[in-house]
């Protein structure tokens, strides 16, 4: 079965400092992994995705994530946090069936302190 675990429910960083949001996955096969972001009163926006090409994936707004098979991790990073990064972040794995459904982590709320 596919699943992801987000290790932190809440992360707080100062503006201009690095961001690290942690995610570990469990999958029987090579997974397709995603990070989505949800700003207040907005839909879930796709930040980036890993689909077995390059292990370091770059996304929008300066975010990137590295797929590490040996650690079963897909942590999200950004070198310098901006106030507009404050949001809820979800690590997601795609199901194995042909129906394309997604399995979400519990989310990490990122707070950026001015």
């Amino acid at each position, binding site marked *: 079965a596919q699943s992801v675990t987000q290790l932190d429910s809440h992360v707080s960083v100062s503006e201009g400092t690095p961001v690290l949001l942690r995610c570990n996955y469990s999958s029987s096969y090579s997974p*397709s992994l995603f990070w*989505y972001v949800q700003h207040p*009163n*907005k*839909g*879930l*926006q*796709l930040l980036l*995705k890993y*689909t077995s090409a390059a292990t370091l994936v770059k996304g929008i707004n300066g975010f990137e994530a590295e797929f590490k098979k040996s650690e079963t991790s897909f942590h999200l990073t950004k070198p310098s946090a901006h106030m507009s990064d404050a949001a809820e972040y*979800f690590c997601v794995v*795609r*199901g194995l*069936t*042909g*129906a*394309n*459904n*997604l*399995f*979400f*982590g*519990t*989310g990490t709320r990122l707070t950026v302190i001015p």
Partner: protein
Amino acid sequence: EPEVTQTPSHQVTQMGQEVILRCVPISNHLYFYWYRQILGQKVEFLVSFYNNEISEKSEIFDDQFSVERPDGSNFTLKIRSTKLEDSAMYFCASSEGRGLGLGDQYFGPGTRLLVL
């Protein structure tokens, strides 16, 4: 940029009543999905829909739920007789296809349903 829209943004209903949540997927997308998020819990898959039929459904999607594409633009989720535990944020999503690239799902802003 095209986006998925959902109406209403908030819905309050009495237990036992029927509700219909509406979604307008991105126009050239062929696959449609509903997810829900109960307050404080993770987003959960409900159902996927393609070519006017259900592709896959989770165990949450029981006989109280149904989906429909009544016309060329709307995609609806109906809950026949709402229960208190149906209170949640319901997200609609669509994708152009399945698999790499085409399978990327685009989400709407959600409908917050409160059952009293």
